[in-house]
């Protein structure tokens, strides 16, 4: 089990940041991802695996509109 923006999600071995973004249907492009506080660069979303019990923040950078 992992927590993404305060929401509980199932965990499986090899689950990547990209998988989480897809599962949450986060379509917005300006995202910042952190796993347990550690920043994950955008070009590493496909290759970064999330450990079990991790807290993941996917910050949407829109304070605009």
């Amino acid at each position: 089990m992992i927590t993404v923006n305060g929401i509980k999600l199932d965990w499986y071995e090899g689950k990547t940041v990209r998988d989480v973004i897809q599962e949450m249907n986060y379509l917005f492009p300006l995202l910042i991802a952190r796993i347990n506080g550690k920043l994950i660069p955008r070009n590493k979303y496909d290759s970064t695996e999330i450990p079990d019990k991790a807290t993941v923040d996917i910050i949407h950078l829109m304070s605009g509109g």
Partner: protein
Amino acid sequence: MADREMIRIEIDGKSVSVEKDTTILEAAQSIDIYIPALCNSELVEPYGACRLCIVKVDDGRKTKLVTSCNYPVRKPIRVYTSSEMVLRNRKITLEMMLSRWPNVQVIKDLSKNAGIKKPRYQHPAVDLNPNACILCGLCMRICEQGIWENIINFTTRGAVPAGRMSYGSDQPHCIGCGACAEICPTGAITMVDDPNQPNDAEMIRKAGMRITKEMIKYDEEQCDMRGVGTAHLVEIMDAYDLLPVMNYRFGKHEETPKISSDIFRKYFTKGKPDGCWLGCTMACAKAIENFELKTGPYKGERVLVDGPEYETVGGSSNMGIFDPYFVAEYNFYCDTYGLDTISFSTGTSFVMECYEAGVLDKEKTGGLEIPFGAKDAALELLHQIGRGEGFGLIAGKGIRYMKKYFVENFGADPGFVFDIGMEAKGMEYSEYVTKESLAQQGGYGIALKGAQHDEAWLIFMDMVNKQIPTFEDKAEALHYFPMWRTWFSLCGLCKLPWNDVEPADNAETDEPAKVPAHVQGYCEFFEGVTGKPQTMDSLIRMSEKVYNFQRVFNLKMGFGKREHDAIPYRSAGPVTVEEYESRQDRYDTQLREDVGIDPSGMSSEEKVALTRKYREAQYEHLLDAVYKRRGWTNNGVPTIAKLTELGIDFPDVIELVTKHGG
């Protein structure tokens, strides 16, 4: 974006692994190996003009000299950047350049590094100008590829070919962005047009160029503002349940793909950026050319539609209409009649819901059958408003007027029309569903001009990121962002370059939501014009004075108290059973977890009422917190202490707020 194929190569004995198709020059730069590259820039496609970047490549079968700026790595190779052959060749090239442009600083520097004291050749067309054009082609490439204009070209008029504007020095289509001047390595291009006589034009240009660079490098993968403009938000808002559908009852619809940005991309005039102002390289305005109108006074004519933008498309889903031709048509006629697409569409959504609920019927509308989705009727209503006729005379006066009119003349239930009539302070809501973001409800309700999101757009911060969980956090956001965004209006600047493109390292800053590097850029714009240095805090301070003064003005005009910051309940929660049931899980969970009531066994009516009680109380708490943060009384009136602190404690201001308990 899948991870790319990696290839390991060797440069000057150092091994490095790079993505396939990386150029040798980029590979070398990534491990700090220097190769002179005069005609190259990360902002444009390589060109291979100067030939200074040559290196020797050994692919295991043979060796050859290649220009490293445009040689893509496709297999393992060995690269030598300063072999004897390379150095000899580079030196000859430089000597020829130096003989032709002996006073150009960058050539002099490179020659010196290469150990050239005096060139061995004499060039027949020697040019002694220290700012001579060296034909690197950077200016034309950035203008064409980076800015999407095509203003500068090599011309051979006169004795010396040089980068020039095609039709003389006054090219009316040049947007004056300054990118060519900025990228030119010799200073051959200078910007001369400074009609406003700013204090420091260079400072303004440098800050502008930073945004331009980000637009060139990142826009396509970020917001694609130049490709489709704000319409890129349509499918995004739908995905987050925030796209208003049928008068804000719902936040998404299965037919949204019919009006998504991909559809409009096909109709938009391509490859031609269209900025509101000269020099803007975000250029998010879009147009549909040659659009044939189907209704109204210009029926059958082909016209240019200026748009649509996100709000116009969101207004259409709000009316339950998912037809791009309708969007273009109503966009055109709103512009032509001088109507705002937001007010028209939100107002018409209200009319449609009233029609479906029986508040209106064909007789009351003068023959218009206008339920959700009735596009012909919506257009007819638009034309009636334009002509000032029939039901258009009533609808054209806006929701606040209609609510009262329907109650007084049609016997409408005041509770119902006030719940679903989406306006605050008399202005129609713009196109976002705010039910699940308390902070955004405040963003609309407290905004001085009425229900517009341009003071604060906090839905992601609040609802998705959960960055501002407490009332105090929300109040802080409802202090900072409205002040910051007021500042744009004070200066007449557009806010989109602030956060619709993002610097590469923004994520690593302390407060990425504020985009600190861009705030710094705006400080420089201000200082560049006025000569007065600024900080993030001083900009906020400027706004705070004006903002509080505007609140006092509202007070004077009868709009500046707590009661005026009230919002229609549709903006805070589900008004109808149908709405509740469409998101039952969400609302049931809230009752259970946040309110502490077990909803099982309750009727939907009971749950609607309990949810409402809870959410309305939350909104009142929010107002308390925001007023406190802003230094206002609990009735939303600026205190004398606050006005004194801001230096706007003029006698008539004090007299007015005193009367209202400030």
